[in-house]
């Protein structure tokens, strides 16, 4: 809370006590407005679809989450490439934030899709191309997070994750194509294939406000997750200066075999 004296003397606003800032609060407020509109129009005002009936209300959630997930994974892919080029912590943290948020939105997407399937087909899962693709991609990025969770030197971890981020993203179009061709042989009702291209005005309005809200929430989450990751790195760095001091002190106490930790290789 107390504003520590900054060397630049001019901006003496207190340091933030969390990952929020004026920008994110503004962004969050706008997102909440769009969400409110989406709830009101999506659940109450807009009429049932001519073909989908009330299940279009699930699509209002399904489409924004899948777009948010792809936006997050796109962020991860770009960040992975940028990390391997620039090697800065910024791109590493942004990439890992994207992967985590993408996994979150993909999980929600798949659950929404299964619920839609339950109403439409009577079963939760029917190997619908988009859902199948999503499931494969979700597991691919769970692997990214699994590697991320392995304790390692920050640079090592960053390189591993950047490699996985790139290897995974080029697979997305291939998985799409393969699954499309595969399911194309027994085409049935698909989630998006049944959308009426001439949706009514309120339906379109509900869809677009939900989509905007989804993307804003995704960006908002990315910023906060990035900052949380940045803080976590700084918190781990805190030990470093002390570790260096302790390491040097080992030499003054000439007791051999006073090894602290880690392997000497």
């Amino acid at each position, binding site marked *: 809370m107390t504003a520590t004296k900054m060397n630049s003397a001019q901006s003496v606003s207190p340091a933030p006590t969390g990952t929020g800032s004026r920008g994110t609060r503004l962004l969050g407020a706008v997102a909440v407005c769009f969400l409110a509109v989406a709830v009101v129009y999506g659940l109450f005002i807009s009429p049932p679809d001519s073909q989908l009936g009330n299940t279009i209300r699930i699509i209002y959630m399904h489409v924004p989450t899948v777009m948010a997930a792809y936006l997050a994974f796109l962020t991860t892919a770009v960040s992975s490439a940028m990390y*391997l080029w620039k090697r800065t912590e910024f791109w590493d943290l942004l990439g890992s934030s994207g992967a985590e948020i993408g996994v979150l939105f993909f999980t929600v997407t798949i659950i929404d899709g299964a619920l839609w399937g339950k109403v439409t087909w009577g079963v939760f899962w029917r190997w619908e191309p988009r859902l199948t693709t999503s499931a*494969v*991609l979700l*597991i*691919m990025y*769970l*692997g990214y997070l*699994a*590697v991320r969770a*392995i304790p390692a030197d920050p*640079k*090592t971890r960053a*390189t*591993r994750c*950047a*490699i*996985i981020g*790139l*290897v*995974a993203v*080029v*697979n997305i179009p*291939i*998985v799409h*194509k*393969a*699954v499309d*061709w*595969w399911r194309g*042989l027994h085409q049935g009702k698909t989630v998006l294939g049944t959308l009426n291209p001439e949706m009514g005005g309120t339906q379109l309005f509900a869809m677009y406000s939900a989509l905007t809200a989804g993307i804003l929430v995704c960006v908002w989450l990315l910023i906060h997750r990035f900052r949380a990751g940045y803080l976590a790195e700084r918190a781990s760095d805190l030990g470093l200066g002390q570790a260096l001091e302790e390491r040097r002190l080992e030499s003054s106490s000439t007791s051999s075999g006073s090894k602290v930790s880690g392997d000497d290789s």
Partner: protein
Amino acid sequence: MSQTRGVLGDAWLMARKDLLLERRAKIGLGQVVPFAILVLLLFAFALDPDRGVLKQATPGLFWVTVLFSAVLTLQRSFGLEAEDGILEALRLSEISPAGIYLGKVTALTIQLLLLEAVLVIGVAVLYDTKFVGIALLVAIAFTATLGIAAAGSVYGALAARLRSRETLLPLLLLPLLAPVLIAATRGCEVSLQREAVSGWPWAALLGIFALVYLALGSLLFRPLLEDA
């Protein structure tokens, strides 16, 4: 002379060494091939052979068996590079990272193709499969195997130095190979004339997969060896 060896020369040096290692240690022949045959037997136990399920599912079962065997082969292939400081020695050597990668892919492709040859005999005998459309089958087997080796070598090298490599490699690799499994299985079904459409698009998709990962792996292997 050695200065002009180039990436392909490096790859050949690595691949020759890997094949020599297999000839000496016979892990693939002595352990992976029996495992693959065992999986074929297990599938027969799980899916009653008299109800025709086994026959219908043969292409899928074949490729699932290949995928599992590929994971084992990759564990072995990169496990021995991670032992005894070999990775450090390779970094100190003149072999380019792309050469190491392509060498590993070459050796793995050859080993897996030989394994598939044994498995083909296995399904022919055990599942009573009649092979038709050989050209397409060969094309699919080659492109699929190259794709498995190309993508697998990136993740194999990445996982090799991690303590949890046995569990991590399948988690990373198998979803990545999902399109290979789909394309290879459908392509073989078409070739065995279960479907009345052309199978060559599947072979093309497998070829694209293999080329994409060969290019990516060649680029990524340097950071992979240096920093991962």
